[in-house]
Structures are given as structure tokens and as C-alpha cells.
């Protein structure tokens, strides 16, 4: 930031042609650095919307609002020095007058002009490429048109739609993912002998093809398309120069992009042999007032089709416009993608083109993994690599390119956890986040000098990890190392007794089949536990279905609420909440609860979760109260402890004029399914019968909202100290899919969240965020879905009401005695006064004045 921030009297005018991600980055970078307002900016984009995240087109489009693709920092467009013209095309440039003319007939004078016009998708010159049903894959509109066409074709043809993608590169596989998401039977046709020929080698291409075919996409390599066959003007099939024909209803061309350099050509600027506006390493053209950045720029003799080098160019131009001397450092063509849910990464000298390279390859066709590192001839320095099927090592390896790896290279290719990953000891100038060009030094500086103490703070401060997010694990590691260096202890240890985190502890208990606290602490901890680790282990054992929570040694792990299966209140008495699934209760049930409350002198209140809370019970009264409630058909509501609380519902289609589905029925089913499920924090669900959302389902950990076509499921909402709205996980699910989705979401959360971590921060902290969680629960990206399903099936199958089981066990009942040496003596330390017709705890003043005290819980009438 410049120190001189006095505003400039009459700013110069910068016109940016093009409204993509790179153009936007230029505006962002310039506004951030131009404290004096030396430049007023007009950005002219031909799409009808503000710049959006084109990289995420596929992962976001399925059923989503285009708004979801908006890039952060939308207030940029409110800046008085920034003008955004949408849906406007620049028709010509008058370099002498320094003026552009637009499709709206207006002209704009400029002091500086930046061409950021990007590329268009190339369409190969095969006959039939203009038929209805032939698409390219470039913009939101392309994607929206594709979806609309597929949906209308499916109705017209009344059968599944099939499609082909011409091109097996990055874009082609993305497009194939889009077709699969639209439930289209998909074939990928690639001219080269393997998929992603520019990024991966033969072995990687084979591994990739195997994985992608495993997802139901047919792959045809070494195949040239000769014609798209039509019928009544619409796509019907394809023919090839060799091999059988293909019946398809839709074709996407994804054979590459061509720079949109026509404006520059018209204006007489130099273009490269294969297109692109020729610029020097400052992104400047031969005209001192004109620059070019992004995919349209021909820099170092070529055009680069990735966003990261485009961002770098934007930063350079911003720097130059303010008098700096930045130059393009050369492109990092590394890529890491999740295509169709398959991890692919390629970085550095992936094809071992430098002489003397050694290749270390691990290929496991069974597991669908292919990994290669290219090392220098002495096997010490990393030059590049390819990762297919498991790219978890990418974030750590990519910044190591050109550096000594240290140790056995093969160790870095083993599955995560089996080898020490590179430490945070990267040199200061190493680029960690290539999207935003953030170095290791910058990240350390934000911790050391700018007071950032966690990942979120570092992200906000440096922008590291805010674009594609693939560097986040490494950023996290560097931040942790720097914090430790500054004397801040960063530990995932649960407490003084366990060095493991909750998630790690869950795994060891599960994998080693441990069932008692003594075994667990003997193997993995020290001492005899505390109020942190004991309830966590109690919860883990309960989640794993090891039986009653008070059985044997497990009783010692329960906090007082779980131990007496009621909620401790301020005066030492307890409250009791019977389960009322979905909030539906019979008149007989209400009367029974009321009678119990009356007989035991309990204060009653409707809870926030559609149940009845009975307050003021002494510990020795709990068995008597529950004996009556169980008799009346009630069971424990688990209002105590960390577990499923309620599934709130509206009245739904049962009574409501507007309800489109049976929200009460579903809420009851869900509540009965998840009752008793122990989790890192209490969890609540909600089901609304229509979009009016009377159950406030989006304020719940899992919210279900009925649509005309099924159920939408939202996750990560909660009340409490930091209220959050839940975010959409999936749409229009049938009931069976919905339940399976919730099963997996909850079980995955139960297994991996930190102690007392609600679902919202869990999703936030999860690597890859909600998208990654969606991939786990909907696409089984981690291969653990069966495991999660069977864990939930075990929970559902072995559930028993904790109170009914306790009442049947004299040993457990003995623990509710008031005094071990005087079980029949009533604890007289409790005192109550009347208020609004009920008893409430007396205040210390009321106690000492010895007045207005009424008999409350001592008025016991046993039936």
C-alpha cells in the first residue's frame, strides 16, 4: 500500500476489454494498490453478468443458481472508481485517438487499454458441427443451454439421453462430468492415444481411463471424429474415421480454445503465428498504451490456458500502471483437478523433457492409482510429477519443484500418513498458492508481523488458498510451524491425557476394536482422564455401538447429564425431557406427561424443540418419574449429552394448505432413526413440508425442505453463539436417497469432527469445504460410503431406550440413591418458591429470608 493516499485530482482512465476472472483480478489488484485513486477503471464484459468463477463451472452448475459462481468481494463493483459495463461488446479500437467503440454505439476514451478478451472454444470443422444438440463448454450460458437441451430431449425422446464429448483433455473431462451430472450416458472421444495428453504420460493416461470408465463413462482414444449425424436438424449420432458409429443425442466440443484476438488484429497489433496478442514480459504490446493479459496474451511465444498465469499477468499490469517494474516470471503450468471425482495433478517437468531425469513410478491399477515423480539425475532434486487417482501429495510436492526433496522420493508417493510429508521448511520465496501468487515468506510474515493466529486469518490477510484451495493443507502446515516458532502452542492433542485429536482417537478405537476407557488410555494416553477426554471417549464408544452408556466402566466416562440421563439445572436438580418425535403427541400422551409433572411437583415448559421439559426433579426421583413415563409409552429424549436432540417439523401436507410432502411423517422417521446417536456436539434436524419453511429447517444441522419433486437437503445450520444458515447439499432427492445422504453426512461428521465442533465449522474446516463433503456422501469420493452406511445400520439396529434399560437393572438404579449411607433420606438442600403458578428455585436471598418457600419436589405421590 502506498503511504501517500491523497486522492488524485483527475484520475487517468483505464479501459479493460473482457469480463473474465483475469480482468476482474486486474481491477481488484489495481484498486487495492492505487490508494491515491490515480486510475478510474471501466471494465467492459460481453456476458450479461459480473465476472464469475469459470474454473468452477462444472462443480457448481448442477441445479444451482449462477450467483453461486460469483467471485468474492462483490463490493468491488460499488467502488466509485470502478464502472462495470455488462452485456456490452467492444467493436473497435482507435489507437490514434485512444478510443474504443462499443456495441451500444458509445465511445470511451482511454489512457491505458488492457485486452483481457480470453478465448473462445474451438469447434472442429466436421460436418454437422452446427446441428441442434452440438455445444461448446465455456460460459454459464453454454452450460445452461446444455442442461435445458438435455432435459427437453429426455422428455421428447422418453428414454435416457446419451452424449459424447469430443476432446479428452481438461475441458473435455470437465464437460463429461457435466454430462454425467445430468444423467447422460457419456462417451469421451480423444484423438490422441490417451486422455489428458498435455498433462499426463501414457501410464497416467491409462490409469485415468480406467478410473473414468469405472465411473460409467466410455473412453475412446486414438479416434478421429469424421461427422456429426443429424436427423431433422438435431444431433442423432457420430461417425469416425475408424471404429463403430455412435448413437448420441448431444455432442460437446472440447478440443481446445483459441485466443480472441480479432480486436487486436483489426487495430493492427502484432499477433502470434497461432494467434494471441504478442506482449513482452511486462504484458505490454508495441503500443505503449495497450496491454494484454490472460488467455488472449501471447507471452514468451505462447498462449496459456490456465487462470494462475493470467492472475500473475493482471498483477504485473497493475504494478506497471502504478509505475512499478514487475515482469512475468514464467508460467507454472501445474494443474490439480478433481475431474468426475478423480484426482489428477501434473506439475513441473512432468514429461521428463529435461535431460538426465529419473522417473520414480508407482502404479497400482487395482487401487486406480498412478503416481510419478521426475527427479534430477542424482535423484535428489524434484523436477516434476504426475498424480492420478490420489493427488493428496500435490500441495506438498509442487512447491518443492527445483529443490532437494530429502529422503527417498518413493516415500512421497505412498498413501498419505505412511510417509513424512515435506515439512513447512520451504524457502521464503517459494510460491505456495500459485492462484494468488502467495509465497511461503508472505504466509509466515502474516503470522509473525500481522498477528494472524489461524488459517482463517491468514487466508483473509494474504488470500492464500482462497481460489482453488489445493494449497490449503500446506498453508495450514506453514502457519502451524510459524505459530510454534512464535511460541504459540499448536496442538491437536485432545487434553493432557491424550496426544491424539478426537478424529484420530475415533479411528484408533474403531480400528483396534477397543471397548474400555482403561484399554484406550493405557495404549494411547496417560493418567486417568478428565472432563475433556472422558466424555469424548464415552461418546466415541457410544457412536460405535458398544452398548448401554452406563454399562461397566463406561459409567465413569459420562458427565453428570449422561450419567443420570437428565439435565443438571442451576440448583442441582434435573430436568426431564421425554422424546416426542417430530413434535407429534397424542392427547393421552400429553395428559400422562402432565400427570407426572403434577404428581412430582415439576415445573413444565415447552422447549425450543417441540417437546415438554419437566424441571426440578431430584436425582432420587428420576427412576420414579421415568417408570411412569416409560409406562405411558415415552422414551428418553436425549436432551442431555451430545446427541440427536429433535427433528422439528411443520404440519406439512397432513393439514397444511400449502404443504407438498408429509413433513411430520419424515420428521418422525428421521428422529426414530437417529435417536441416541452420540456426536461431537448436539445435533438438530428440521423438516419443512414446503418452501415456506415453517420448521426453520435451514437453522438446523440437517434441514430438509420438501419440493414438488422430492426433498432438498441443507447442512451446517445452527443456532447458538454463532448462528448459521444451512447450505444446500443436494436437491430433489427421493426419500431413500435422502435418508442415505443424511446417514452418511452424520456418520462422517461423527467420525471426523473435533470435540464440541458443530457441523458449520466442521464443514468450513474440512479440506475442500462443502464440495468435498458432498463428494464423500453423494459420490463416495473417499471410498468409505459402505462403511458409513453399515455404521449407521448398526446404530439403528442396536438402539435401545436407555431409560427402559436402566429401569430393568437394579445395579444401575442403585446409583440414583440420594445418600449411600441413608438411601431413604431426602436431600433437603433444594428450596422452591412459587411463580406464575409453578415452583422455581429460590434465590439465595429468598433462602436466607426463609420466607415464601413452598414444597416443590418433596411432594411426591407414588402411584
Amino acid at each position, binding site marked *: 500500500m502506498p503511504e501517500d493516499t491523497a486522492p488524485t485530482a483527475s484520475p487517468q482512465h483505464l479501459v479493460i476489454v473482457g469480463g473474465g476472472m483475469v480482468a476482474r483480478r486486474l481491477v481488484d489488484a489495481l484498486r487495492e494498490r492505487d490508494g491515491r485513486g490515480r486510475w478510474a477503471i471501466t471494465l467492459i464484459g460481453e456476458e450479461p453478468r459480473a465476472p464469475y468463477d469459470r474454473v468452477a463451472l462444472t462443480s457448481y452448475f448442477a441445479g444451482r443458481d449462477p450467483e453461486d459462481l460469483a467471485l468474492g468481494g462483490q463490493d468491488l463493483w460499488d467502488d466509485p472508481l470502478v464502472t462495470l459495463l455488462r452485456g456490452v461488446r467492444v467493436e473497435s479500437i482507435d489507437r490514434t485517438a485512444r478510443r474504443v467503440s462499443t456495441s451500444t454505439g458509445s465511445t470511451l476514451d482511454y489512457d491505458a487499454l488492457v485486452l483481457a478478451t480470453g478465448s473462445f472454444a474451438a469447434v472442429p470443422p466436421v460436418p454437422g458441427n452446427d446441428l441442434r444438440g452440438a455445444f461448446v463448454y465455456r460460459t454459464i450460458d453454454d452450460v445452461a443451454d446444455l442442461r435445458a437441451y438435455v432435459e427437453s430431449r429426455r422428455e421428447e425422446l422418453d428414454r435416457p439421453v446419451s452424449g459424447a464429448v469430443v476432446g479428452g483433455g481438461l475441458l473435455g473431462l470437465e464437460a463429461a462430468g457435466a454430462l454425467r451430472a445430468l444423467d447422460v450416458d457419456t462417451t469421451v472421444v480423444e484423438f490422441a492415444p490417451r486422455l489428458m495428453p498435455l498433462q499426463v504420460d501414457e501410464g497416467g493416461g491409462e490409469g485415468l481411463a480406467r478410473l473414468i470408465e469405472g465411473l460409467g463413462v466410455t473412453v475412446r482414444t486414438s479416434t478421429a471424429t469424421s461427422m456429426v449425424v443429424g436427423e431433422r436438424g438435431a444431433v442423432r449420432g457420430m461417425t469416425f474415421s475408424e471404429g463403430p458409429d455412435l448413437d448420441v443425442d448431444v455432442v460437446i466440443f472440447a478440443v481446445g480454445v483459441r485466443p480472441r484476438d480479432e480486436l487486436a488484429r483489426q487495430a493492427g497489433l502484432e499477433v502470434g503465428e497461432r494467434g494471441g496478442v504478442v506482449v513482452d514480459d511486462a504484458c505490454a504490446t508495441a503500443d505503449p498504451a495497450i496491454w494484454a493479459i490472460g488467455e488472449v496474451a501471447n507471452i514468451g511465444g505462447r498462449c496459456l490456458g490456465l487462470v494462475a498465469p493470467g492472475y500473475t499477468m493482471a498483477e504485473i499490469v497493475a504494478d506497471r500502471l502504478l509505475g512499478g517494474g514487475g515482469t512475468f516470471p514464467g508460467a507454472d503450468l501445474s494443474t490439480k483437478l478433481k475431474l468426475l471425482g478423480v484426482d489428477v495433478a501434473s506439475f513441473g517437468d512432468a514429461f521428463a523433457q529435461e535431460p538426465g531425469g529419473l522417473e520414480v513410478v508407482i502404479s497400482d491399477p487395482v487401487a486406480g492409482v498412478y503416481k510419478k515423480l521426475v527427479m534430477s539425475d542424482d535423484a535428489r532434486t524434484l523436477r516434476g510429477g504426475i498424480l492420478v487417482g490420489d493427488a493428496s501429495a500435490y500441495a506438498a510436492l509442487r512447491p518443492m519443484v527445483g529443490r532437494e526433496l530429502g529422503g527417498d522420493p518413493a516415500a512421497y508417493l505412498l498413501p498419505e500418513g505412511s510417509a513424512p510429508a515435506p515439512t513447512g521448511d520451504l524457502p521464503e520465496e517459494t510460491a505456495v498458492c500459485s492462484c494468488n501468487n502467495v509465497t511461503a515468506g508472505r504466509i509466515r510474515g502474516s503470522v509473525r508481523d500481522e498477528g494472524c493466529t489461524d488459517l482463517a486469518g491468514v487466508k483473509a490477510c494474504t488470500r492464500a488458498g482462497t481460489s482453488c484451495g489445493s494449497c490449503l493443507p500446506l498453508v495450514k502446515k506453514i502457519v502451524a510451524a510459524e505459530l510454534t516458532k512464535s511460541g504459540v502452542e499448536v496442538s491437536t492433542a485432545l487434553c*493432557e*491425557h491424550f496426544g491424539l485429536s478426537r478424529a484420530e482417537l475415533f479411528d484408533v478405537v474403531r480400528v483396534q476394536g477397543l471397548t474400555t476407557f*482403561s484399554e484406550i488410555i493405557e495404549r494411547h494416553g496417560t*493418567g*486417568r*482422564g*478428565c*472432563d475433556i477426554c*472422558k*466424555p469424548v471417549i464415552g461418546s466415541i464408544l457410544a457412536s460405535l455401538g458398544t452398548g448401554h452408556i452406563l454399562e461397566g*466402566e463406561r*459409567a*465413569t*466416562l459420562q*458427565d*453428570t447429564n449422561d*450419567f*443420570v440421563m437428565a439435565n*443438571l439445572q*442451576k*440448583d*442441582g436438580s434435573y430436568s426431564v425431557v421425554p422424546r416426542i418425535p417430530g413434535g407429534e403427541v397424542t392427547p393421552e400422551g400429553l395428559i400422562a406427561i402432565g400427570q407426572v409433572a403434577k404428581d412430582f411437583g415439576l415445573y413444565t415448559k415447552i422447549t425450543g424443540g417441540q417437546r415438554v421439559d419437566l424441571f426440578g426433579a431430584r*436425582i432420587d426421583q428420576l427412576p420414579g418419574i421415568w417408570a411412569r413415563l416409560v409406562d405411558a409409552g415415552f422414551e428418553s429424549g436425549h436432551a442431555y449429552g451430545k446427541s440427536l436432540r429433535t427433528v422439528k417439523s411443520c404440519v406439512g401436507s397432513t393439514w397444511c394448505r400449502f404443504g407438498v410432502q408429509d413433513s411430520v411423517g419424515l420428521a418422525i422417521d428421521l428422529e426414530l432413526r437417529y435417536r441416541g446417536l452420540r456426536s461431537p456436539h448436539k445435533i438438530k434436524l428440521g423438516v419443512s413440508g414446503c418452501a415456506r419453511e415453517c420448521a426453520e429447517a435451514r437453522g438446523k444441522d440437517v434441514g430438509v425442505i420438501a419440493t414438488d419433486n422430492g426433498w432438498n437437503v441443507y447442512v451446517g445450520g445452527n443456532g447458538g453463539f454463532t448462528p448459521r444458515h444451512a447450505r444446500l447439499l443436494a436437491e430433489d432427492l427421493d426419500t431413500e436417497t435422502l435418508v442415505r445422504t443424511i446417514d452418511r453426512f452424520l456418520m462422517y461428521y461423527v467420525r471426523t469432527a473435533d470435540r464440541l465442533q458443530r457441523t458449520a465449522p466442521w464443514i468450513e474446516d474440512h479440506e475442500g469445504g462443502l464440495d468435498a463433503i458432498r463428494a464423500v456422501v453423494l459420490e463416495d469420493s473417499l471410498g468409505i460410503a459402505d462403511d458409513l452406511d453399515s455404521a449407521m445400520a448398526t446404530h439403528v439396529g442396536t438402539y435401545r431406550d436407555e431409560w427402559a434399560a436402566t429401569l430393568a437393572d437394579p445395579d444401575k438404579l442403585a*446409583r440414583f440413591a*440420594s*445418600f*449411600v*449411607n*441413608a*438411601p*431413604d*433420606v431426602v*436431600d433437603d*438442600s433444594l428450596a422452591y418458591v412459587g411463580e406464575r403458578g409453578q415452583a422455581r428455585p429460590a434465590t*439465595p436471598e429468598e433462602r436466607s429470608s426463609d420466607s415464601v418457600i413452598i414444597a416443590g419436589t418433596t411432594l411426591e405421590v407414588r402411584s
Partner: protein
Amino acid sequence: MTAAPPTTRVRLCALTDLVPERGSVALVGGVQVALVRTHDDDVHAIANLDPYSGAQVIARGLVGTRGGRPTIISPMFKQVFDLRTGECLDPIGREPVSLRTWPAAVVDGQVVLETTGDDGVAPSPVGGS
């Protein structure tokens, strides 16, 4: 040196009446005493009244260790107390207040409390036998 005051032994319950690593409450001369049997079968007697909430709840807290010292943690606001001395090891942001303790022992399988009569509990038990 003064002679130790005379003590009375009060029998409260059998060791097997106590659940390991969970507290129970005994009523001794009108005073609620939390009895805690640790994992290694030591028995500790400590005041049941939680000074921070004013409720008789200490016995319902979790039993564990802190830095090797046996502890009980108030279930109300989670203050940590040393079972042997009653010292408050973690006042959770409040002024530390220690809890009264009594010498307890296991004699022939029976839990006994030693009281001098001027330490807050009467010399004879209430209830029990």
C-alpha cells in the same frame, strides 16, 4: 507440638457400594460428604457443596487426574479439585476456593471417615448401620 485431637471413626458404607471413579454422597451429621473411589481403590472424602454454584453436586463430577494428582471436577462450572487436599487446581476464571476434605480409609472392606468433631461433621453418622 500439640497432641493430635481425638478422632472418631464413622463407618459409612462398604467399598463395593462405591462405583470406581464415580462419586457417591454420604450424609454425616447433617453434612453432605462426597465419597470418591479412585481407579486404584483409594477412597477420598471431600465436601459435596460446590462453592461456585451453591449446589450439592461435587459427587456427581467426573473423576480423573491432572498432572498425576487425583481430581474431581464440579459438574456445574467445571472447577477442578484435588481429591486428596481439596485444593482448587483450576478455578475456571474465578477466585480459587478449596474444598474441605476428611481422612477416609477402607477397613475390612468398609469405608470409614475420621472426624475430630470440630471439622464440620458431627461425630455420629445419620442413617446407615
